[in-house]
Structures are given as structure tokens and as C-alpha cells.
């Protein structure tokens, strides 16, 4: 069996070779992220059979947990690693031609580091290790947001940096408190002894960690950095931030709540928080006339939806939530990628300036449409199975509060439909300036978008395959006892 550490070590090694390669030949460096993510993807696929039999525990440096740091490669971790690799691969193909100017080597290096950080967060079994990978993720994204070097980019990058640092400090304070209480930072070790400690004492570190991780996970009210950062970053980076970074943040929140702390008292509150995040995200998106800000707010909404699904905490809804992770990565990725070239060609981020693009850029507009339909949750696209699972699970679980919250979730879907369909109409059914051909998206971007569209359609038509795997990922997330048992 291949060692899962390679998922982190190889891309990270490649990341630091980028400046060297850049020195030797400038033409190859942009292929390094493609190679790194392709490697990770192949590795993930090869790990699937082993992981389905039981989680793979890797002891770093040969120290036995809880004394050493361990990686916990269960179905959930592998799911995230695979998703990151796949999305990272597609987006790096897109970046081949999209990113043309600026310090290219730094872009590619930071891009890989961002993805390594995300993969690390998903795979680690140690709290401090989690913090470190989190910082790698965050710091590379602060830099990448400002990549364009324009005023808006710098401003939002600084804002993101400030809020992210506050979040990280909170996280660190929380981790410190846990170390004070338990004397260990191994997740499994804490989970084992969490029942022996007074719940009241645990609450404060939990809230600190929730607040800290909530910043990166874009949970309301800690998500104010997101609209600025996502809208002023280059579109490929927006796709990664929306499709991967905040999802990994939410994963970390879920890991804390489900596995480490294992408290179910807070679920109802988190479901509320999820619906609140969803409502506010969708309402702000509805009020936007700037396409990238609209997509960014829509990401907040999706995070809220997934948080709700996870917090209902039945097997079906968690599976649905994880499904929605996949859908959001693909659809929002596709939306940002297509919006990237739509904006590039029309020269403006205003929705009104995208009118008539359906004729000028047929493929890109089609990609945007598919992404929109999928995100709203229309069949036969990938958004539908996820939404169906969430609604089904929430109603099965029952309880007046949950049913009312589900109703609110579906109301948000209507709002979401309204603003996405508005853009689709602008693309196809409103008169705009007609331009000639020859301004279509370049081949690399087309390949990336077609790939994502095919994934969305395949997942929408045949969700069974993903669902089988996601069900074991969901039980991985919810089964704290098994987690402890397999690590220690």
C-alpha cells in the first residue's frame, strides 16, 4: 500500500521546487501544480480500497499516538483529499492560460501550498498539526487574494489577514486551553477522555475553537472577510477559496464538534446558525449586482446549508451535507471559472455588462448555466441529490424546529433560484453588444469547464457511486468511538 504521507509530502516538495524550475525554464513551472494534483488524485484513488476496509493510521516519525503526531486517513479524510486533488487539478489546468501576468512562480507555489494546507487539515489527527496546516492554508490564501496587485485586492487581502489572524489566535487559545485540560493534543486521545471532564469547563475552549475555525469556515457572523476576498481575488483563486478553503474550514468545525468534543447539545444551535448563515448569504447575494460578489455571498449561503445538514446529525443529512460539499466544489468552481472569462471579455463585473454573452461565448455561458442550475439544486444536475438527501433526512428526523428550519432552507432555494436565473437570462435573453467570434475561452479553460460540467452531470445522473462512499465518510465523521478505537 502507498503511504498517505505522500499526499502531503510530494506536493509540498514540488511547491518549493517551483521557484527553482522558474529560474531554469519559465515555461514548465505552470505545469507543476497540474502534476502535483494529478499525483495526489492517483494516490487517492489507489488508497480507496484500503481505506474502505478501515482507516489508515500513519504515525509520523515513528512515535506512537498519543505521543506522536498521526494522520488519520479514514473515508472522510480521503474524500476531502480526493476532492481537493480533483478540484485543484481542474483549476490548475484552467490557470495554465488564465494566469498570464504577475509573479507566476509565486502564484503556482502558493497555489500548491494552499491545497497542501487544506489536505493536511483534512488528514491530520492532531490538533496542533491542524493549526499548522490551517496557517499554511490561510497565509497562502492571504497572499493569493492580493495576487492581482490592484487596490481592491490589497485592501481585501489586508482585511482578510486581520480577521484571519484574529480567528487563528482564537483557535490557538482554544487549543491551549484544551492542552491545559487534557495534557494532550491528539484528537483521539482527547475524544477518549472528554467524557470524564465537566462539560462546563469544555465549553469555553469549544467556543474559542468554533469562533476561530468559524472565520475560515465563513459561518455567520465571522464571515465578513469572504465577499471582499472572494470577489477581488483572481477567479481561479476564488474558485479554490470557495470550493475548497471554506469547506475545509467547515470540515474542521465538524471534526471538532463530532469527534473531539462529541457534544450533541449544541447541534440545534448549530442548525440555527447554519440556517441564519444561509439566509443572510442568500439575501445578500440577491441584492448584488456584481457577479463575483454574488457568487461569494452564495458561497456563504451554501456553507450555511451544509452546516445545517451536518448539525441535523442524522446519517442521511450528513451524507447529504457531504454530497453538497462535492456539488458546491464543482458548481461554484465552474461558476467562478466561467465568470472569470466572462468578466475578462466583457471587462466588467457588473451583471448588466454580461448581457448577450451567450452568443459571444457559448461554451462559457453554458458552463455558467450548468453551474447555476446545479447550485440551485435542479435535476438532473449534481445539486439535486444533495438537496434531496438533506430534505429527506431532516424530515425523517422530524421535530417541529427542524421542519421549520427545513422550510426556511427551501425558501432560500427560491431566492437562490431567483438571482441565478436572473444572470442566466442576462447571458442568453437580454440584448447586449454583439461581438465577433474568436474571443472564446482558450483551450485549457474550455477543458477545465467541460470536465467540471461532465462531473456535475455524471454525479447528478448517477449519485449512487458517490453516495455509497459518502455514507461511510459520514459514519467516519459521526463515529467518535471508532475513531478513538482505531487510533489508540
Amino acid at each position, binding site marked *: 500500500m502507498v503511504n498517505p504521507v505522500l499526499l502531503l509530502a510530494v506536493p509540498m516538495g514540488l511547491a518549493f521546487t517551483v521557484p527553482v524550475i522558474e529560474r531554469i525554464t519559465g515555461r514548465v513551472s505552470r505545469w507543476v501544480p497540474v502534476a502535483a494534483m494529478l499525483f495526489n488524485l492517483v494516490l487517492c484513488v489507489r488508497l480507496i480500497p484500503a481505506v474502505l476496509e478501515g482507516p489508515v493510521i500513519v504515525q509520523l516519525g515513528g512515535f506512537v499516538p498519543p505521543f506522536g503526531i498521526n494522520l488519520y486517513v479514514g473515508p472522510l479524510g480521503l474524500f476531502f483529499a480526493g476532492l481537493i486533488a480533483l478540484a485543484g487539478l481542474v483549476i490548475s489546468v484552467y490557470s495554465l492560460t488564465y494566469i498570464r501576468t504577475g509573479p507566476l512562480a509565486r502564484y503556482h507555489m502558493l497555489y500548491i501550498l494552499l491545497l497542501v494546507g487544506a489536505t493536511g487539515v483534512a488528514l491530520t489527527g492532531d490538533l496542533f498539526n491542524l493549526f499548522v496546516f490551517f496557517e499554511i492554508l490561510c497565509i497562502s490564501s492571504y497572499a493569493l487574494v492580493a495576487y492581482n496587485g490592484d487596490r481592491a485586492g490589497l485592501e481585501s487581502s489586508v482585511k482578510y489577514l*486581520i480577521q484571519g489572524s484574529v480567528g487563528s489566535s482564537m483557535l490557538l487559545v482554544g487549543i491551549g486551553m484544551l492542552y491545559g485540560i487534557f495534557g494532550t493534543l491528539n484528537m483521539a486521545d482527547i475524544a477518549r477522555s472528554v467524557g470524564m471532564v465537566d462539560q462546563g469547563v469544555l465549553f469555553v475552549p469549544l467556543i474559542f475553537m468554533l469562533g476561530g475555525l468559524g472565520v475560515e469556515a465563513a459561518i455567520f457572523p465571522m464571515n*465578513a472577510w469572504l465577499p471582499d476576498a472572494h470577489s477581488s481575488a483572481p477567479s481561479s483563486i476564488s474558485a479554490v477559496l470557495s470550493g475548497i478553503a471554506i469547506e475545509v474550514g467547515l470540515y474542521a468545525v465538524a471534526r471538532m464538534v463530532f469527534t473531539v468534543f462529541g457534544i450533541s447539545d449544541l447541534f440545534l444551535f448549530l442548525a440555527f446558525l447554519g440556517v441564519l448563515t444561509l439566509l443572510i448569504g442568500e439575501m*445578500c447575494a440577491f441584492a448584488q449586482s456584481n457577479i463575483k460578489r454574488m457568487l461569494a455571498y452564495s458561497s456563504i449561503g451554501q456553507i450555511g446549508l451544509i452546516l445545517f445538514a451536518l448539525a441535523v446529525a442524522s446519517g442521511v443529512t450528513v451524507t447529504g451535507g457531504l454530497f453538497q460539499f462535492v456539488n458546491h466544489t464543482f458548481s461554484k468552481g465552474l461558476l467562478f471559472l466561467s465568470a472569470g472569462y466572462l468578466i475578462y471579455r466583457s471587462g466588467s463585473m457588473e451583471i448588466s455588462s454580461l448581457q448577450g454573452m451567450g452568443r459571444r461565448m457559448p461554451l462559457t455561458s453554458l458552463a455558467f448555466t450548468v453551474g447555476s442550475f446545479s447550485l440551485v439544486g435542479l435535476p438532473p444536475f449534481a445539486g*439535486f441529490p444533495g438537496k434531496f438527501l438533506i430534505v*429527506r433526512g431532516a*424530515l425523517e428526523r422530524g421535530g417541529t424546529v427542524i421542519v421549520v428550519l427545513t422550510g426556511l432552507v427551501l425558501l432560500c432555494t427560491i431566492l437562490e433560484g431567483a438571482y441565478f436565473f436572473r444572470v442566466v437570462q442576462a447571458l*442568453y435573453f437580454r440584448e447586449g453588444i454583439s461581438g465577433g467570434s474568436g474571443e472564446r475561452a482558450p483551450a485549457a479553460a474550455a477543458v477545465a469547464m467541460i470536465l467540471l460540467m461532465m462531473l456535475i452531470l455524471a454525479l447528478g445522473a448517477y449519485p*449512487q*457511486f458517490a*453516495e455509497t462512499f459518502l455514507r461511510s465518510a459520514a459514519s467516519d465523521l459521526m463515529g467518535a468511538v471508532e475513531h478513538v478505537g482505531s487510533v489508540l
Partner: protein
Amino acid sequence: MTGVEIILAAAFAGALLTWFIGRTSSTAGSAFAVAVLLALTALVALLHGRVYETVFYRGFLGLPMSLRTDSLSWFFAMATTVLAALSGIFSLSYMKDRKNTGFFNTMLLLVNAAMLGVVFSGDLLSFFIFWEIMSWSTFLLISFNRGQGVNAGLKYIVMSLVGSMAMLVGIGWLLGAFGTLNIARLSELIPSASGGHQLVLLLLFGIAFGIKNAVMPLHTWLPDAYTEAPSPFTAVLSGMLTRMGIFGFLLILYVMAGAARVLHSPGSTVPTYNVVLAWLGAVTIVVPTFIAMLQNDAKRLLAWHGIGQGGYMILGMAFGTGMGLAGGIFHTLNHAIYIVLLFMSVGAVQHRTGGVRDLNSLGGLARKMPVAFIGALMGISGLIGVPLTNGFVSKWMIYRTLILGGAPFLAFAALIGSWGTILSVYKFLHNVFLGQLPSKYENVRSSPVSMKIPILVLSFAILLFGILPGLPLKVIDGIVVSFGLPSLDVSLWGIASEAGTLNTVNLFAALAVGVLVVLAFVRILGRSERVGQDSNYSAGCGVPRDRYNYTARYYDPLFRMISPYLKDFFSTLYDGLARGIGSLCEAVRMIYTGYVSSYVMYILLFISAMIFIHLTWNPW
């Protein structure tokens, strides 16, 4: 593959192929689209009389998805494909010189395929999936004409989403409660569910189907959508697509809740639901029909009738007797035939006059476009329910049900609706085809052949089903029997029932005698003189052309009298609601102030508030 699977596979594959063929040549694409629609019609016809269910897909989240066919599905599928094929033929010349014909054809076939999927679904998951595909492809087609169509499309899809979200909750709940979505299984399980459960389900599904069928007060999408969609698609939309709502109501009420069984048993919520539905149907008949009278746009006038006629179907169907049910279903078919015919006539006029459909500027086209005129004349006869047209038979059945069922008020409502219909469609016919021909339309040519064919076929169908109502009623009787109601005594010429017999032979004879008598009188006593088309108004005196203008402000006194009462209150309400939500969203957006200090404040406030709550009340 069984028959149903082949039909659906062909329908969806046909849509996809049309796209690719249309990219190379739009003429070839249109021809291929028509060929596919005709082939589908033949395939569906072959399915007649078969009853079976087959699982076609197991790959969706462990829920088997199945297709089924029985008399109900077949009836709706047949009507859908025939009308879609006729609309396809009609669109050949209508869409000829327009942009994006390939897209139009593809979407037309996709809508058709989705409708077939809806009627053939054997479980609610497939039903929902096909329903949603139908909704979004309809949205794209309504927006197709651009301009106002964009707003109409957005209104449609938002209301449609409201309906489908309600349905999704209903489906999720059914799955949770009964563990299956198979319609046949559910029909065994639901009647035993508690009254409250039944009511909630009927309400949730009722919202979805009520929006699709444009039952008041959920009708506001329809006038805009019918008016703004391209005319061949308006035909499809008005003919069967909107009536998928009726299909849905039949499905939940009669197939799943078993209304026929529980309607007269105490303790069930279905009877109450039926009564409310019937009254909503009555309101839907009366108000829109009079609003129709006030319209000056030919398509909008017909659109309001589309709402009103839907009320008749709801009324007949909700009443729950065999005769009423058969009347409601038959009316669905009849309405589809004449409304498609009417929209095609308007479409033909639009095609030849350069898109004009304003009732105040058209006129006198009967001579120029005789086939379109015949179509419009037959169409409004059916719409009014003139004896020996199809509309008469179904309305007769509905009236009879209401009077015998002891619902005089509902019958009266239906009757008032008929008056309004007569007044408004006469305005329509007169202002487009009769009266004086404006000089700018002197050179209007007759409709192209591909428009004449469907118009004549449908005109013939109106007479055929009016004189020989037994043809469709035999099939409808099969549906009624499959719901567990007693069979109607249907003969080729009409219906016999204990309370009165409908026999179109007698009607035909009476009408023939009447016409002969009048003709004889005219022959013997009358001395006629031919006058020109322009000079009939002023009894032969010369009137300057184009000043013959009473067609504008038609029914003006009546208009002044009733218009204060006929505001589309709900449309105003929903528009206000949408605006309110818009400004609420604008307000919510202010949370994100743009100042990083306040953002950091939010983070710290969240943490401290949580800790404060924890320490003070200790809720967790």
C-alpha cells in the same frame, strides 16, 4: 426495454440529436424535430390499453425509479404528443426566419420529453425529476422572445420553484413516513394515514399543482408567460403543460389518496379538501373570465381564458362523482384542443402581420386569412361550448354534475363564467377577423401550409369530439373506472345517465332543422344585396377608411362598471412581496459594513456572547 422506456429514451435522445442537427442546418433540425414528435405520437398510440410498471433505474440513492402506464397516463401522454407534434409542425414556418431555431426546437422536444416523463412516472422521485426538468426548460422557452419575456420567465420559474419546493417537502415526508415513493405502493398506504397527515400532503402537493394549473390565487405567472412565449410554445404551454397540474391533482386525489373511496366516508380530510378545491375552481372560472374581457392583447385575452377554463376542470374533477370527473378530464382535452387552435390562429396572424397582436389595431382579416379565421371561429365555439363542439359536451357534464350534486352556487358560477366567455371571445374574433380591414394589412397573405395543417386538423377535432364524444369518453371512462368509480354509460353519440341523456344525434338533427328553416325563410322571403366588407358598418354609406373604430374600447360601459372590482389583487400582492424582499435583502446587506474593525468586532462579540449566555443561563 419496454414500451414506455423506449418512448422516454427516444424523447430525450431526440431532443439531444435535434440540438446537434440544428447546429449544422436549422431547417434539417426543425424537420428532424417534427419527425421525432410524430414518431413519439405513433409510439404512444401503440401503448394503448397496456397497463404495467417497470423499474428503469436503480442508481439514484437506492430508490428504485420506475415508469408505469395505465389509462390515465396514456390519455395524457397521447394528448401531449399529438398537440406537441401539431405545434412542431406549426413552428416550422413560424420559427423559420428567427434566430436560435435550433435551441427552440431542442427545448420544445425537451419539454415534451419531460411531460411524457411526468405522466409515465411510476414513483414520485421520477415524477419530481421530470417535473423540474419540465419547469426549467419551460423557463428557458418563455424567456426565449427576450424583452418582456425575460420578466415573464423569471416570474414563472420563481413561482414554479415555490411549488416544487412544497412538493419536495411532501415527497421527503412521504418517504420518511412510508419508506417508499412508488405510487402504487403509496396508494395502498396513504388512505390509512391520519387525517392530519393527509391534509398536509394534499396541501403541499396542492400548492405545486395549483401553481402549475394556475388556480386562483396562484395564477399570476400565467398571463405574462402565455403572452410572452413564442406562439408555438404558447400552444404547448397552454395545451398540456399547464394541465400537468390537473394530472397531478388526479394523481394525488384519486390515485394516491383514493378520493373515490374515501369521499363519502367520515373522518377523512379529503371531502373538505375537495369542497375547498371546488370553490377555488369556481372563483378561478369567474374572475379571470371577466378580466379576459378587458384585455386588448389577443394572447393575453386567451391567457386569462386559460386560467378560467382551468377552473372548470378543477370544478369537475374536485366534485368527485364519476360524471364530474369524466367531465373534468374531458374538458382538459377539449380545452387543450381549442386553446392550442386559438393560439395557433393568433400565431398565424402574428406571423403575417409582423408580430401584431393588439386587438385595437387588427381587424377584418377573415378574408385575407380564411384558415386562421376558421380556426379562431371553431376555437371560440369550443371555448364557449356551442352545441356540437367539444366544449359543449364536457361543460354539459360538469353542469349536470353540479346541479344534480346539489351545488347550485357552483353551477351558477360556472354559468356566469360562460357569459363572460361569450362576451370576451366575441371581442377577440371581431377585433381580429371581422369588421374593417386597416389599409396597412391589405397585402397580408394567407397562412403558410405548415400552419394551415394543424389549424385544420384541430378544427376538425373540435367538431369530431363534439359530434362523436364517445371516442374520447370511452378512454376517459376507463380512467374513471380505474379510480374505482362506476362506469358511465357511454355510447358513440353521447352519455346516457339516469338523470338525463346527452345524445348528439338529436342535437345535430335539431340544429340541422333550425338551419334549414332559416335558410328556407331567407330563400323565399329575403331579398339580399351584396355589400363590400368595408361598408357594412354604416348600412352602405361611405365611411372614410381606418376611422371605423368602435373596436377600440370595446365594451367600454361594462368596462367602467366592473373594472374597479377586477383588479388582479394577488398579482399586486406578490409584486409587493417581491419588492419587500428585495429591500429587506438590501437592508441585510448592510451587515457587511466594509469596515474591518466592525468585522473583528463581530468575531469577538460572537465568542463573548456565547460565553456570556453559557455562564448566565447555562443552556447547553
